[in-house]
Each structure stands twice: as C-alpha cells, then as structure tokens.
C-alpha cells in the first residue's frame, strides 16, 4: 500500500502524495505528485462499490461537500447525495482534483521541488491520459482493484474515456455525459481565444506571475467569459437576458449596459477568485490534444475493443453545441462495433452544455436505471 497523507480540509478531503514519479505522455516524468481528493460513503468489504467521478475543466474534488476556498456547496447536487443516483449510502464515491489543477493537486501553481519556486511554464505539458493515470494511482492507493463506475461530464467524460482505453479491466461500468472522444477544430479555437486572452494580459509575465506576486486577472476573466458562452445555448441566453438593460437607458458608453454583459463580467470575476491562469492554459491544452482514436489511426472502435466487458451509458443534450450529440453518437457507434454493451439517449434540454450540471429529471432517471441494473449485475 502506498503512503497516504491525511490532511482533512473539509470532512472527507485528503491529499495523496504519489510514492513514485509519474511518467507522462510527453516523455517527461513528474516527481512528488500530490492528488487532492474527497471521498463520500464507505468502501464495502469486497471493495466492489467504488465510484470515481471525473470533474470538468474548472471543476474540483468537492463534488458533494462545501468547497473551502469559495464556500460554495458541492458542484453536482442533482446527481450525488443520499437518494440521488450516486448515493454515498450505497457507494464509496471518490472525486479527485485533476493533475494540472489548482485545488490542491499538483499543477503549474505548485512548488517545483528542484527550484523551490512555483513551476509556472516549466511545468510539463500534460494530457488527459496523464490525468487518468494519476487517478489510477490514487485508486490503487485506496486499495481498490476495480471500480464499479467511472463517470464524468464534459472533460470528465474524456478522462473516463481514457480510463476505458488504459484500464478497462479496472472498471465495471462507465457513464459518459455531454462529452466527445476528441476535440473538434471549434473546441480548439475557443480554447485558443481563452489562452491568448490570458497570455495577452501584461500581468501574466510569461507565466511567472506567481513568483512576482501578481495575477493575470483580466486575461483569465476574459477567457472565462468566452468559454461561458459556449456552455449555454443561444436559447437559454436569450430567455435569461434578451436585450434587457442594467438601468433604464443606454449609457452611450462602454459600461455593461446589457444584463448579459454584466452577467458575463460577473462570471469572469468570480472565476479569477478561484482559478489559476496557468492551470487554465495547461488543462485546455490537454483537452485540445485529446483524440482517443489517434493512437489507432483514427479508428475509435479499435481504441475501445478492450472495453467490451464494460457497460456504458452515454448521454447528450439536444442544445449542447460544445460537445454535440454527433460526438456522442460517434462514441456509441464505436462501442457497438467493439461489441460493448452501450446505452445512449439524447436528452431534450434547452440549457446547452451546462445541462449536465443541472437537475435534469430524465438524466437522473436514466442514470438511476443504468446504475440499478449494473449494481445488480455486480452483485451490489
């Protein structure tokens, strides 16, 4: 068993320091990697009821408990909790901050043991598979050979797909929500806008802002504003804000006249309080590099052949234009060709990509049914 450092932050929060260097896709290896994680519920005697939740780009390990740095409640209340599909009374639920993140796991903001200063841009470029491998180390350290379920939405779904490819024998079921098996040109394009906004901020200082005691807040806020638009549908934005004004009249200036402007500025500002700009660069890069089929000459089914004993539930949302249904269908087609047991439904919602974080009753019912039958098959 690996060494587990227990430093409770908020009830179930812990940090694991990996005993060995983590080998990365880039060829480099990273020493002293720390993985911050939360667990909920109790691991059963046969260690067969563990669920790994993979969070999205700006998510964190506080899936069902208060985030101590923001004071906000867990980010997936619709899905995780007593009586919810991911029920800690039934399952042992693990959620870890990803490698490269800024909520306690090792990322560009962490201290480089070689220099004693923050890594900044000397942090190696990581991939989605590197994130999955770091999580696998954590799962091993927790004494779990095989997870009952790996579940993730958005980027979390990409990490779950890497689990399918790298560790199919270590998982029984997999739920992929509002995700894709590769980043499209449009996905990469939006991320590039965000990265350029950060790097154009004079306070970014070539990535060395942490050493100099400043933060590229303006750039990071703009990156978040641009990204936030992609998380919502046109219809949802229109319904929420329309052309409503902040005050009674136009200012004939460049203040936030429209409510949608004020909303985006608020989103940007709230984000810089909790997120690190360099982490944003590294994680978006990892997502852009993600293409599960690349190692198999673009044949996705070949990348998934080892997963034919895993049960899958794939969900998409009608109004999600960031990772649209066509991408989920591509995954389902490959799973079918690979001979895996797959379920798929496109859920009607006008809330855009972010629908996966909200309380969508159909998503809850579908995951409930999927988990009930998987749990029965697993003997839980």
């Amino acid at each position, binding site marked *: 068993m690996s060494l587990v450092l227990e430093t409770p932050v908020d009830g179930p929060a812990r940090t694991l320091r990996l005993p060995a260097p983590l080998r990365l896709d880039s060829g480099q290896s990273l020493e002293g990697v720390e993985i911050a994680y939360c667990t909920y519920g109790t691991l059963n005697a046969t260690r067969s009821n563990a669920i790994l939740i993979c969070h999205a780009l700006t998510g964190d390990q506080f899936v069902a408990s208060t985030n101590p740095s923001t004071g906000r409640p867990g980010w997936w209340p619709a899905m995780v909790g007593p009586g919810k599909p991911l029920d800690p009374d039934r399952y042992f639920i693990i959620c870890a901050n990803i490698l490269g993140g800024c909520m306690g796991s090792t990322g560009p903001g962490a201290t480089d043991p070689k220099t004693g200063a923050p890594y900044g841009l000397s942090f190696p470029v990581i991939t989605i598979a590197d994130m999955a491998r770091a999580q696998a180390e954590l799962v091993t350290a927790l004494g779990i050979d095989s997870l009952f379920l790996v579940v993730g939405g958005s980027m979390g779904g990409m990490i779950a797909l890497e689990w399918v490819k790298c560790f199919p024998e270590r998982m029984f079921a997999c739920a992929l929500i509002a995700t894709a098996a590769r980043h499209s040109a449009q996905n990469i394009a939006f991320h590039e806008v965000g990265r350029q906004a950060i790097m154009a901020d004079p306070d970014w200082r070539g990535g060395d802002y942490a050493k100099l005691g400043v933060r590229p807040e303006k750039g990071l806020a703009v990156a978040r504003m641009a990204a936030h638009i992609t998380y919502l549908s046109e219809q949802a934005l229109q319904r929420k804000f329309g052309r409503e004004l902040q005050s009674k009249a136009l200012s004939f200036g460049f203040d936030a006249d429209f409510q949608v402007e004020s909303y985006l500025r608020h989103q940007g500002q709230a984000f810089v309080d909790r997120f690190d700009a360099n982490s944003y660069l590294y994680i978006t890069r990892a997502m852009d590099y993600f293409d599960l089929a690349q190692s198999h000459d673009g044949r996705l089914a070949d990348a998934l052949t080892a997963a034919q004993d895993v049960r899958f539930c794939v969900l998409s949302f009608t109004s999600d234009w960031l990772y649209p249904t066509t991408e989920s269908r591509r995954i389902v087609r490959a799973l*079918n*060709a690979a001979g895996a047991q797959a379920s798929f439904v496109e859920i*009607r919602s006008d809330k855009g990509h972010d629908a996966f974080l909200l309380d969508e009753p159909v998503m809850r019912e*579908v995951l409930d*049914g*999927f988990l009930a039958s998987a749990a029965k098959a697993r003997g839980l």
Partner: protein
Amino acid sequence: MTRSAAAIREDFRAIANMVADGSKVLDVGCGTGELLQLLRDEKCVDGRGLEISSDGVSACLAKGLAVIQGDADRDLADYPPLRFDYAILSQTLQATHAPKEVLTHLLRLAERAIVSFPNVAHWRVRGSLMWSGRMPETRALPVAWYETPNIHLCTLRDFTDLCAELGVEIEASAALYADRPARPMDAMGPFENLRAEAALFLLRKGR
C-alpha cells in the same frame, strides 16, 4: 418507431415463444421496452434495444435495459456481424424507409430474425377499402392515413415474395390477432393472406 396499439400483447407472447432461453437479442424499434423486459424476465435473454424516440429510450433505460437511441434505417450498419442470436423487428418493418435493407441487416447481425407486421391483405382491410372507398382504419391499422408512421405497408404474400428474393428461409410463421393467441400457420397456405390480421415470422439466412 411507433407500434400499432392493437395486437401488441399477443405479438410479444408469440415472439417470446420463438426465442431460446439465455440467448442474445436485439430488439429494433423497442419502444418503451415491454418486450425486452418480458424476454429478460421470462427467458433470461441478454437483450439490447434500438429505439428512435428519446422518450422511449429514457423509459427503457429507467427500467435498466440497454438501449441506444437510433434509427433502424441508419444505425444497424454499426453492429458487427452475427453479434446476436435473434434480431427482432416487431411491428416496425412497415415504418422503415428501406425495409429490404433493414431485413438484410437483421440477418447480417443475428443468426435469426423475428419480424412481425400488419397484413394489409387481411379481409377486414380489404373489406374496409372496398366498402368505404377510404384508406382502411382497422384494429391492426388504427391510425388515419395522414398520421400513420407506416410508409411501407405490405401483405403476407408481398413479404414471402421478398424473403424468396433475398434467399431468406422461413423457419416458422404465425398469424397474430388483437384478441386471441397467435396461431401457427403455413405462410404459403391458400387462405392465410386473407385470414392473418398480422403476421409473425422466424427467419434465417438461406443456405
């Protein structure tokens, strides 16, 4: 695919009788999953489904069935050959765009196909058209012409002709009725085309 409301329970019971215990089954156009549930509970089959409506798929998944939202006309090509023992197409063939291709796919991805459809040559349908001069609305075809999802209706004779053309062997067939149990029949028999309200076939690729 929407199934005609009539003849459904007897249809399912007759299909279940054709399926061997513990086999692998794909139900194409599985609706809200009643047949898959019946097969799972009574025949211990490893069942999968394909269904076009999201409401149908959601209902299936909530029941713990493994179902994919998709279209029989487009998505059957994704399945590898002989993945299943049986591919079932219950009251759905007449609603597909390319019934001939769908039938060919069923017998590519499964050892056997089980197909049922309303028989337009049934005496009630003939009588309805003859006497009213309007598109027949019978208990097996209850929906008005402007609302029906059925775009490729056929008769029992049309179907046996198609099987012959495709080299498909008919292993068993039964006449289905809304109000009484299925009756085994010889699909080539002289009066079955008149007598069967709906027809059910167990098919395999001819050798």
